[in-house]
């Protein structure tokens, strides 16, 4: 009788451990999965950039420096061999410069009326919105994962699997302020 009770307890504990184990793996994979989506979206954006720059270049006379800077950053981004952190930093820079271009467009009525450009602008808006959605999804799944890693009882299993807390995306300090276009153009 005593043996059966002990066996029962062992089975219940084993089931619990397996469940926690699987939950943790599920959460980790969810994080990787969403990071993959961000990657794909960033690539989509980098594919679009040359098109945008060619269209804009014809009209924009005063923002040459800005355009060259974007081209340069893009080249760096698509060359690969970057760490996740570097990639994020690069992506932040590109976002900032793109914001500058979209504001500068206001000074070029002809460009604003260009159908090709309008389509590109819409596509860009869409990708930016998707990237921001993917970042939010990433942060949500990281928070979910971190909670599991730090909270009892899953933290014990996480410790054994050597799972560490992951970092959420943060908006760099200079992006929290409004984009200072003046300064950008005078560069």
């Amino acid at each position, binding site marked *: 009788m005593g043996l059966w009770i002990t066996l029962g307890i062992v089975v219940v504990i084993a089931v619990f451990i397996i469940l926690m184990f699987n939950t943790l793996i599920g959460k980790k994979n969810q994080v990787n999965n*969403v990071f993959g989506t961000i990657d794909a979206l960033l690539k989509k954006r980098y594919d679009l950039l040359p098109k945008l720059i060619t269209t804009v270049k014809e009209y924009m006379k005063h923002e040459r420096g800005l355009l060259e800077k974007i081209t340069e950053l893009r080249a760096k981004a698509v060359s690969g061999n970057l760490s996740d952190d570097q990639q994020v930093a690069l992506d932040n820079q590109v976002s900032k410069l793109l914001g500058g271009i979209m504001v500068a467009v206001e000074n070029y009525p002809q460009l604003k009326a260009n159908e090709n450009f309008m389509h590109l602008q819409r596509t860009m808006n869409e990708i930016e*919105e*998707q990237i921001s*959605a*993917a970042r*939010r*999804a990433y942060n949500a799944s990281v928070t979910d994962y971190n909670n599991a890693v730090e909270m009892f009882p899953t933290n014990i299993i996480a410790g054994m699997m050597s799972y560490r807390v992951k970092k959420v995306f943060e908006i760099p300090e200079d992006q929290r302020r409004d984009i200072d276009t003046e300064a950008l153009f005078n560069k």
Partner: protein
Amino acid sequence: MKTLDELKRFYHQVLKPDLRVLEKKRQTVLNQIIFIGAGAFSIAVIFILIFASQVHEAVPFIFFPLIIAAVITAGLGWLITRGYRSDFKMLVIERLVKFVDEDLNYDASGKIKKSEFNASKIFHTKPNVYKGDDLVYGKVGDTQVKFSEVDAKYESGSGKNKSVKQIFKGLFFIGDFNKHFAGQTFVLPDTSEKFLGKIGQAFQEWNISRPDLVKLEDPEFEREFVVYSTDQVEARYILSTSLMKRIVDFKNKTGKKVNLSFVASQVNVAVSFTKRLFEPRLFRTLLDFEPMQEYFEDLQLAVGIVEDLNLNTRIWTKQ
């Protein structure tokens, strides 16, 4: 958006002359019904009195004639009011629709189709009794919309075992969403999390009848709604931080239960109402402004969804 002052002007300058004619009709119809009712009930009472004077013991079905009288009055009443009702819809509701937005069309007997209602997937149970009327359709700005009153029920069993489940009753709105998307996302009123907090959220995660739970960052939104989606990223693409706020504001504005679904690049909004929408009131004069204001506000609520959810902002590839 039209204001209340504009409505007042419209009411006095355009509607009022026709309403006077319609009001006469309402009085005639009402008098006819009172006449029929009085007649039927008098006959029933006479029947009962004669019967009671003949038989001197308690009879179980003594009030049966009264029930027959009520049924006759209701049936004939419905027949008589039919004409008045359609005149009312044409003269009042249709013109109010045009007043709210010139580009909208109105079909008094039309409704959101049952297939469209089912395709929204907001409600699990498929109705087998499906009614509706007052279809409004057309374009509001850049956004194609349609909405109608819907009353969807599921009836099972018969006789004494008959049970009726109300699936939905109220205003059902379908609009073209301003972003492309491929998956399905559901925004439903939150019941478990509100009362049970974190434990409630765990229950939501185990809801096998819906796709994956999406945990969003807006705490006010999370308190009111629970979100399920086939795609975590897409759900956030649709539910931008501003749209979450807008949905909460819309819910607070209506004060009703609001369900939303985003399916096939469309947004479906179901707003529960207990009263019937856009119906004439027989026992009340038409010349009051107050009921007009109510019809107008119900219409504005539906048409306003476009503005409330910012559907006319077309800065993405979907034009």
